[in-house]
């Protein structure tokens, strides 16, 4: 379909799941994320703790400490949204999940509510990696490093492997 411009059929457009500044993964203060060992993606330095659904989809897995979840788009794309670094250690303190594993959601719906001040005062970075979690990864992940508002369309484009 030509009117989608240079986008190919297997490109998935992802809105910003959280407000803040989009940064490369290499700026995440954690080796596993920064070196891409966790997968391709980008990170957002959040200015607000509300994580919303960046597309219509389902919750593949909500980590029981509510600091991260994997969501799935109808194309099969699975995205890991991981709020903060080493925040598993907070054991859920400062995180409120609005969805459960298996739930369907609409774009814009609240997924997680995170108390950024609480996370920061506990000594953890709040930067939030957004990572392709599919077994085969992605062909590429494109984004513009700029300030975004949660729900801004086309913040991240993921080209799936065919």
């Amino acid at each position: 379909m030509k009117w989608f411009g240079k986008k190919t059929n297997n490109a998935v457009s992802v809105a910003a799941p959280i407000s803040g500044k989009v940064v490369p993964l290499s700026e995440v203060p954690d080796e596993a994320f920064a070196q891409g060992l966790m997968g391709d993606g980008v990170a957002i330095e959040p200015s607000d703790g509300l994580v919303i659904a960046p597309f219509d989809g389902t919750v593949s897995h909500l980590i029981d400490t509510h600091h991260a979840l994997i969501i799935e788009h109808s194309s099969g794309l699975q995205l890991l949204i991981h709020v903060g670094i080493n925040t598993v250690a907070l054991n859920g303190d400062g995180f409120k999940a609005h969805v459960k594993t298996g739930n369907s959601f609409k774009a814009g719906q609240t997924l997680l509510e995170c108390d950024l001040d609480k996370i920061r005062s506990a000594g953890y970075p709040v930067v939030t990696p957004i990572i392709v979690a599919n077994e085969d990864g992605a062909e590429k992940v494109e984004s513009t490093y700029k300030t975004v508002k949660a729900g801004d369309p086309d913040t991240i484009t993921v080209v799936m492997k065919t």
Partner: protein
Amino acid sequence: MVEKSYVVANPTGIHARPAKKIVEAAKLCEGTVHIEKGGRKVSAKSLVNVLSIGAKQNDTVTVSADGEKAEAAVDAIGAVLASAEAE
């Protein structure tokens, strides 16, 4: 088939990062690699699946693999499960 059981040592359980290490270890083996806890058996090559078994500290997890390098994959996954490194 290679099958071994391990006790999860990580105090924060198998969350995102250790789960990813397990997925990478599973990819050492070209064949099927499974991870099982409490009767729930899933492919260890998918991050979502590995997270979905919800393994916590002191849980017993069974890892099995078939095919070339099955032993290497199982041992590598076992090393992640048995690592007490809190991360």
